[in-house]
């Protein structure tokens, strides 16, 4: 469902949740409420942004992780089980580390798209990068120069994220290098002596 509705619509919806649910309370079902808040106070632009963006992203991420886990050869599950690993050990020691190889690249794109998605929250008066720039150029009328500043900042952040992604990919590519790493072989021969 969260993948089916445009993120912008979801953001505006969460921001205006107070119309639907004036009070939000945590309590025992059909029993007394333990805590209760006025929805207008709880749903600030910030909480609406966090709820809206994270629900959309978690829906995509769940699919990415599922695809990664499904991509691990069934034989790996069997080999781990055959060696006496419990299901939990099998998942965290054997399956997930291998799934990470296929999980990381699309996750990187998702990460970047969230970062860019934050520009959407300017519509609910959340002071993100775009909103801050808008506030300034409404005062100074230097629209294009300030939009360029925003562009540069987005590019810098995305570049940093991409570099981080590359490092993660290298870490989880262990055992998948095309060529023998010379250092490793030397190590192996040393240990053999």
């Amino acid at each position, binding site marked *: 469902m969260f993948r089916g509705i445009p993120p912008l619509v979801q953001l505006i919806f969460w921001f205006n949740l107070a119309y639907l649910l004036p009070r939000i309370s945590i309590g025992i079902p059909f029993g007394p409420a333990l805590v209760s808040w006025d929805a207008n106070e709880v749903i600030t632009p910030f909480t609406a942004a966090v709820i809206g963006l994270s629900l959309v992203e978690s829906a995509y991420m769940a699919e990415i992780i599922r695809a990664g886990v499904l991509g691990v*050869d069934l*034989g*790996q599950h*069997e*080999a*781990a*089980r*055959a*060696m*006496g*690993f*419990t*299901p939990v*050990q099998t998942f965290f*020691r*054997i399956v997930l*580390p*291998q799934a990470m190889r296929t999980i990381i690249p699309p996750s990187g794109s998702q990460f970047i798209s969230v970062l860019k998605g934050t520009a959407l929250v300017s519509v609910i008066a959340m002071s993100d990068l775009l909103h801050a720039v808008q506030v300034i150029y409404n005062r100074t009328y230097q629209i294009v120069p300030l939009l360029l500043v925003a562009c540069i900042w987005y590019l810098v952040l995305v570049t940093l994220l991409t570099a981080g992604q590359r490092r993660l990919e290298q870490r*989880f590519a*262990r*055992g*998948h*290098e095309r060529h*023998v790493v010379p250092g*490793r*072989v030397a*190590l*192996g*021969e040393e*240990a*053999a002596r």
Partner: protein
Amino acid sequence: MTGDVLATRDPAAAATGQVPVLRLHDVRKVFAGHAALDGVGLEVAEGEVVVVVGPSGSGKSTLVRCVHQLEHIDAGAMYLDGELLGHERHRGGLRPLSPRGAAAQRRRIGMVFQQFHLFPHFTALRNVTEAPVRVHGRRPADAEAEALELLDRVGLRDRAHHYPRQLSGGQQQRVAIARALATRPRVLLFDEPTSALDPELVDEVLAVVRGLAGDGLTMVVVTHEMAFAREVADRCVFMDAGRVVETGPPEEFFGRPRSERLQAFLSRHTASGRSDS
């Protein structure tokens, strides 16, 4: 389920006083209406090497997979050292073991797969040490020293720090054998260990298995290598259509097969030249 399996100890063993390492009693396994195992009985004594041969689809791979509880059996009983596999006593009846309980039993059985199934993200050494350290709680230093010895035994000590992808198929299978040995299993199961290998790599793996047989390890080997079967087996088992058709010592089994089906099977294999390898 028949009455004599309503106990977690092997009733036959209790009666005779002799406990085989592995005993299968009337094991049945059905896949989508087709009986893959149709009442299989088998006993494997301590130190015995049992080689299972048969045409594809005869149920021989299913047999070892069932012993290892990678498949659940539909009827019958299996005992390891006289202990029922796969079920535990619960309120006067039997219930399937929890995943944890099944894992505990699997730790006493080793398995070598046709497709090796080494963990590609670990080095050869780590593949061998992982189970002893994580599952059996051995000290990493001890496990590593032992793993290097095992890799030495399969002739791959100098490849300890290579990843599986950097090894040939034969080398990978030898690491897989070392990995299975590292848990000190009571019985080692081989599911067609050389079927996925290039012909020139088969011998190095068979040499390792031959060495293990010489060391007195209890093994059940499913294979298509007839010459090898004849050489290492203490006892040969011929399976067809989910049943054990004939069993006997290798000289008799290959020299004077009694059943027509085994005769036909052996002549086919000699004609195709597979037994020459």
